[in-house]
């Protein structure tokens, strides 16, 4: 297993070093926030999740020991779990077995600036497990091995989630003629 690039920083945070705390926030906050925003599709809720993730980090930093997972994998898992709590609360829980296309409403016409909104809506409409896989590999730039470890599944299962997720996105985004 390769060295964890965050290990030393986390050790310093655990020892109560204020400079390390600032460095960790600067390094991880953009990643945590972008993950939560894309999972939840709600900036305010995503900020709450980011804050809660850091509370967990402060609480566990002094006890954190690298086991099977890297620190980055661990915080992604914490963030995803917090996102799932919120999705459950919103009663938006859908299992991976549900149809890929869950939002039959027509997507808005494509105008400059609206393309991102179309993608956001499509991403929110696919099954959460497929959404997670796409976000981790595509936006969080995790390798297939890291993403599979974060989701606690095999690489083959990850590839299956990715393929189904991308197909679903393609179908939804093509529906309004904006994509072939």
């Amino acid at each position, binding site marked *: 297993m390769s060295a964890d690039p965050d290990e030393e920083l986390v050790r310093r945070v655990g020892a*109560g070093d*204020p400079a390390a*705390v*600032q460095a960790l*926030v600067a390094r991880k*906050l*953009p990643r945590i*926030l*972008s993950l939560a*925003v*894309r999972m939840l599709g709600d*900036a305010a809720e995503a*900020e709450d999740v*980011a*804050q809660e993730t*850091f*509370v967990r980090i*402060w*609480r566990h930093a*002094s006890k954190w020991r690298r086991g099977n997972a890297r620190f980055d994998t661990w915080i992604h898992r914490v963030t995803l779990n917090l996102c799932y709590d919120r999705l459950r609360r919103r009663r938006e829980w859908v299992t991976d077995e549900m149809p890929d296309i869950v939002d039959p409403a027509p997507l808005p016409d494509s105008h400059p600036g609206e*393309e*991102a909104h*179309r*993608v*956001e809506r499509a*991403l929110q409409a696919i099954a959460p497990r497929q959404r997670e896989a*796409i976000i981790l*590999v*595509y*936006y969080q*730039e995790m*390798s*297939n*091995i890291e993403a599979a470890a974060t989701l606690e599944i*095999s*690489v*083959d299962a*990850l*590839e*299956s989630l*990715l*393929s189904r997720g*991308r*197909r679903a*996105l*393609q179908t939804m*985004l093509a529906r309004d003629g904006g*994509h*072939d």
Partner: protein
Amino acid sequence: MARDIEDNTAMDAKRFAALAEAYGGDLRRWPEAEREAATAFASSEAGQAISRHAGTLDALLDGYSVQHPGKALHDSILRAADRHLVRRRRQRVWWLGLGLAGIGLAGAVAGLALVSIVTPEAGSDHYVLDANATAFGDANPDAENGEESL
């Protein structure tokens, strides 16, 4: 992790299409073990067509960017960290105080135990001489003289 250890020369259109369907058209996202073979296949006509098709969705996904964290969120997280550090420092001081008190208490208990072990116990037959006692008897003027009465 079977995909990462299998022979990376086994790349054909079917596998290339399956990987493009999962990871998109950018080979940098593909499994490291298959990237080299995929790069070679990508220059073929079939490879180019598959990459082009996958790239269309990639371009749409690229358009969905999220805002960087605001200063308010950043500061709020740092304030929470400060509060946590202060609380932890207080807890450490409290535990240190408790530890010292425990050590003091243990010392006192050990001292008492030592005194009780070292000090001889006063026996019931222990005879205490008083000021009027002599080797021949009690010299007290009021004491009864047994010999004279004989």
